[in-house]
């Protein structure tokens, strides 16, 4: 029989750390497609991207090369042979390794499940820089060594060769935008990042997921759990079986009867977490929402139990949210994975940049998904490019990675952004905890080996 004091000690309830959050509508429109119209081409998106990023690229290029007496050539077709100059435009990589819609339609008569190759660069590729006037081919060792992505707006310094190509000696990007002011964060407030739960009809809830829920709700390691002020699930919450390729009228292809109990089970599971701590869900490639970026929030109607709690939010992918005054930008990882496919083949094994480094590089580009829409499916925006950064986030996280990692993106002005890679929980059983005060990450692994 427990004594009163012992019982009181055991019954101690830790108060969860408090934090301020942004209004749900504040950043809701950042990646909203609104009323959709697919009767337009993607040139408007590229045009908007070039118009918005070009001034920033010119600003940095002027600072970088003016002292070396390298002048700007306003149009790529006006480059004079033998003259050192720099040009600004959009990178385009023409490679046979890139997926081709026409080829897929010809061979398979269906493009709803495109086969994504391992890499887009290889032999026979041609890298171009394109602006309103035309395009010019880029050559040189720097072109082969640099991580260049189709859709990237950059300035290239060099000289035109006798063959009409442009030999690149230096590259300049738009640079990181300014960081918003960050108020003093609460002491020891943490954000828990989870990604890739991949609940399947065969096993909607696993033992590791149950341990995760017990930790987040405070039944396990309560002093640490009490510091968590926000839980973000970055994509791939569910893993619906892919439909068989076939005619759209095929009843077997459209059979989604297995999804209903899965959705209910996931809703019940996430409601346990939502009842204890603010929960934000982001869709991923496997979730029931758009397949093209930006993925719109999963319909909250699928989470009837989670919606009963005030801290539940269904976000888009990518998404912006504020926690304790920190601006968090996140994605489910498709954009970073697509950028990784542009790494040159010879660099992939030996000196392959890590996903965190690529994500930090994308912040330097001021664009988190430059390969959209060329190799990354994207909605055809006409008046804006939502993936362009107007403000640097304090934290940039992306999910569904092979392992947890952290890097820091530093701008010349001294501003820093913590870049966090969140591993796939279904494979690694690991989550990432970010301390908002120190901006340091730690991982928590849930293991249930053979008992």
């Amino acid at each position, binding site marked *: 029989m427990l004594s009163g004091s012992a019982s009181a000690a055991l019954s101690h309830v830790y108060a969860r750390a408090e934090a301020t959050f942004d209004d749900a509508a504040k950043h809701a429109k950042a990646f909203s497609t609104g009323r959709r119209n697919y009767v337009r081409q993607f040139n408007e998106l590229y045009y908007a991207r070039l118009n918005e990023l070009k001034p920033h690229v010119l600003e940095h290029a002027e600072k970088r090369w003016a002292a070396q007496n390298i002048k700007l050539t306003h149009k790529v077709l006006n480059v004079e042979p033998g003259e050192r100059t720099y040009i600004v435009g959009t990178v385009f990589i023409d490679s046979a390794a890139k997926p081709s819609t026409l080829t897929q339609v010809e061979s398979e008569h269906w493009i709803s499940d495109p086969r994504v190759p391992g890499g887009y660069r290889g032999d026979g590729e041609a890298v171009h820089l394109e602006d309103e006037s035309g395009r010019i081919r880029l050559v040189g060792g720097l072109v082969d060594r640099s991580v260049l992505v189709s859709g990237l707006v950059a300035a290239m310094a060099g000289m035109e060769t006798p063959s009409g190509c442009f030999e690149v000696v230096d590259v300049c990007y738009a640079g990181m935008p300014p960081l918003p002011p960050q108020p003093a964060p609460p002491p020891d407030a943490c954000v828990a990042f989870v990604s890739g739960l991949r609940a399947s009809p065969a096993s909607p*809830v696993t033992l590791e997921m149950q341990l995760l829920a017990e930790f987040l709700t405070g039944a396990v390691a309560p002093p640490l759990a009490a510091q968590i002020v926000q839980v973000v699930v970055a994509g791939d919450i569910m893993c619906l079986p892919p439909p068989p390729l076939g005619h759209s009228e095929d009843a077997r292809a459209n059979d989604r009867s297995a999804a209903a109990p899965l959705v209910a089970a996931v809703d019940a599971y996430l409601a346990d977490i939502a009842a204890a701590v603010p929960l934000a869900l982001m869709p991923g490639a496997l979730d029931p929402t758009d397949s093209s970026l930006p993925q719109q929030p999963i319909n909250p109607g699928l989470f009837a139990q989670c919606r009963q709690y005030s801290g539940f939010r269904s976000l888009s992918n990518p998404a912006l949210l504020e926690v304790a005054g920190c601006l968090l930008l996140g994605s489910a990882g498709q954009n970073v994975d697509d950028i990784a496919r542009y790494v040159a083949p010879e660099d992939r094994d030996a000196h392959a940049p890590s996903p965190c480094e690529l994500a930090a590089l994308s912040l330097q580009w001021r664009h988190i998904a430059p390969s959209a829409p060329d190799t990354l499916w994207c909605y055809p925006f006409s008046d804006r490019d939502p993936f362009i950064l107007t403000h640097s986030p304090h934290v940039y996280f992306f999910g569904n990675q092979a392992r947890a990692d952290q890097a820091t993106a530093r701008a010349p002005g001294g501003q820093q952004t913590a870049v966090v890679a969140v591993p796939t929980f279904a494979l690694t059983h690991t989550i990432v905890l970010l301390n908002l005060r120190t901006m340091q990450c730690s991982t928590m692994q849930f293991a249930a080996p053979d*008992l």
Partner: protein
Amino acid sequence: MSAAADMLRLWVLQEEQVVTYRRLSRELKVHVNIAKQAMLEFYEANRASCFATFLLTGTKRSGAEMNDGASITTEMVVKLVAAQELANAQQGLDAADSHIYSLGCHASSDKNVLVMANISAGPIRDIAEFNAVGSSVAKLPGLCIKHVAVSPTAPPRETKIATAASVESAESGAESSTDKPSTRTPAKASGQKSFFGRSVSKSTPVKSESGGTAETASTPVKEEPKSPAEPHIDSDLDMNDVEDVQLNTKRRVEDMFADDDSLDDFASGSESLPKQETQGTVAAASREASDIEMSDKADSQDMQLADSQSGSSRRVHKRRKVSRVKHTKNKRGMLVTQTVEEWESFSESEPEPTSRVTATKHQSAGESDTSSSSLANASKKSIGKSKSAVPQRSILSFFGKK
């Protein structure tokens, strides 16, 4: 803790169940730490006859490699271990802490056993008040799907609320119709329908007394599912209501396509055409239009059969010959559109449909087995179904078989 010991003796030793601390906490309505302590005491008293699993937490001793000082250096572990492995597992961790997780009568290497034990323990939010960490969110009072009030006297539908949730809402002082026992009694079916086209349930009506205006005037539809894996099944619908819903659905489907004149140009012809091999580029619009029409006809046939089987109204059924567009794949794997004639039954009480002269545009493939194509102008007269506001079904019906 005699109650806890008795309970554990019954579950673990007699019924040979696997019991977690959450289940004990829920049954005894005590703090989770008190439940863990009770389980530990029981295990130490009955080591020979039961098997324990412990949850071990700690920090991995070998940290991550330093990489510019920015890499992750702290790796924590939450690990389930058997009692006999606990000592070994603790040696590999710093700041290790453990507590008992489950008790069983024999060791089991199957993780699903613990999964099912946790599921049988119920949702974690049910024991939120007994958790070691307080909640920082509030349950939204009376949050339900907004729906149109059918009648001011329509009583609310019975809903199941988790214990912790009802305690929370009571503490917050939130008024909700679902929290009041007096409004839980189901109402008698009076031919009234909820927003989703479901009838109000069958027992006697009860005057609603709750304060929520939208809630009392309407019928909350959703009930919490009985288990995480089981979808909710509404048992209050009777056969008449099912047929009414189907009939309304049929009308709504027909209304969706009744005014679309562009479909007229792509309706199939009345005579069956021989198989034609296309280039695989049948006009997308024509295919889509004929597909919509085909699904429309299929729905129409299903509705009519449901009506005929209901027995709710006596109708004279006849059969008529209609043309349908079917899509198949030929031996080359190309999509082929084929018009076939079939017989379908229809009710004599229904107005005669106007002749659906459909036309399909076929492109000459240039192959040896293709015949000359023909294009017929078609006109489709709307059937004349009045547009009525059809109640919307649950969003989860989207996942049903089409």
